[in-house]
């Protein structure tokens, strides 16, 4: 029984490895499905905007509201813009964007490819001489890898605006002064690190969703499982990656 479980786990690990290697082999070789990549960027990026805007804005307000009392104890409310800036750009924006995208985009990719798989649409592409991996997987993974960093920058901006709303209510700080203090507190390295982090998160969301969907089986039950595992697995990996990347970024000089 234990041996069977271990075997299954190792086989799955080997399959994931093969899937990722195949992606890197195919992503650098033409012909490219530009139209499909643009369509996926629209699906992943533009269609996520309402949810991601609302979440980013609320996080900005709540984080500012919760941080104020701690700083007020030391009479350091003036440090709020700097604190918010560092927290949002370095940690909150990449993580929140990735987690929301994992829930919305990851499950959508898993379910879409899963249902295509069980209804033989992927095989239909294959027998028509079309490379389904390139059309379905490469285009989606490229789109998530491109769009998640862009969404992350957008979330950071919206969260900072949400934070300003709270600051404007409590302190007499103008928006120009607020943003001057925000940008004084962060460096290019902070933004660059977050973009790289989001790129890794985007790739993870795309490849996990595609793997779960593309390899799903057992009919409609398999579709549900693919969507579910796409979210669970990518969220788990995002936290692990966050931990690893934060450790690695310490070695990059300021």
């Amino acid at each position, binding site marked *: 029984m234990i041996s069977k479980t271990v075997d299954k786990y190792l086989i799955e690990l080997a399959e994931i490895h093969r899937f990722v290697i195949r992606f890197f082999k195919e992503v650098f070789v033409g012909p490219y499905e530009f139209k499909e990549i643009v369509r996926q960027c629209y699906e992943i990026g533009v269609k996520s905007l309402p949810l991601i805007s609302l979440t980013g804005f609320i996080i900005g307000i709540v984080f500012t509201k919760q941080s104020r009392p701690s700083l007020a104890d030391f009479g350091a409310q003036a440090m709020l813009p700097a604190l918010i800036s560092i927290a949002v750009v370095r940690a909150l924006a990449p993580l929140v964007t990735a987690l929301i995208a994992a829930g919305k985009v990851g499950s959508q990719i898993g379910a879409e490819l899963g249902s295509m798989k069980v209804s033989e*649409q992927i095989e239909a592409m*294959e027998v028509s*001489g079309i490379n389904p991996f390139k059309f379905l997987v490469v285009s989606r993974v490229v789109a998530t890898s491109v769009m998640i960093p862009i969404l992350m920058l957008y979330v950071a901006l919206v969260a900072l605006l949400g934070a300003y709303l709270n600051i404007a209510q409590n302190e007499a700080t103008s928006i120009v002064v607020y943003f001057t203090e925000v940008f004084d507190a962060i460096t290019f390295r902070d933004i660059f690190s977050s973009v790289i982090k989001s790129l890794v998160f985007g790739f993870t969301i795309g490849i996990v969703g595609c793997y779960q969907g593309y390899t799903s089986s057992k009919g409609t039950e398999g579709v549900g499982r693919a969507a579910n595992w796409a979210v669970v697995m990518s969220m788990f990996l995002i936290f692990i990656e966050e931990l690893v990347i934060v450790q690695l970024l310490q070695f990059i000089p300021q």
Partner: protein
Amino acid sequence: MKEIKDFIKYDEPVITIRELYKSFGDLHILRGVNLDLYRGENLVVLGRSGTGKSVLIKIIAGLLQADNGSVEVLGHNLINISPRDLQALRLKIGFSFQSSALYDSMTVRENLEFPLVRVNKQLRRKEINEAVIGVLEAVDLLQSIDQMPSELSGGQRKRIGIARTLILKPEIMLYDEPTAGLDPITCIEINKLINQVQDRYKTSSIIITHDLACAKSVGDRIVMLLDGSFERQGNFDEIFDTEDPRVKPFYDYNFIK
């Protein structure tokens, strides 16, 4: 019985299968299958569910790999074919899926254009339109050109699935349960369409089914998959001229004896 077509060339096999074996774990599905499909003929493969009929045509289309034996399609041996050659060969094979496998997110027009524009990138808009309209007329569904697959009936979906394969002008057609889940009248229409495809496009076809009315109507030759290999072949009457308990219930059930 179906009349014999004069364009069938019984000295020119397009598919030759010898001693084909395929297992899934401990389940031995195909056990030494030998089969020839001749140019222009409609070959019906009969057999119970789970006997490996669909596995057989998926091996022919290169979707599954055989464990042992040789499969030669239009002169190419599938056992050691390169991915590039397999992709080129697949353009000569049309596969009509049991579920129709239409792309849900695309209209009928987009479903038909999708393989065409990828295979032939030089085509102009006018040529693409002509090809799409041509195959839709062939399956008598021109009026559905802008509909979504979800708006079509089961029979219409099958027809569009067949049209999508015809647009690439295949030499070989593989039909997986073409009449499964359809009402008797739609079954008759699909059978008629399979014969029309044979006459108009001169395709060589393998039709997987357990619908004997379909087998009788479209099959120039019938083979029966029993215990993992083809033990019986011939025309409809020859196949069922037996008391074999593995064969007789097929006939009795389909013709309500």
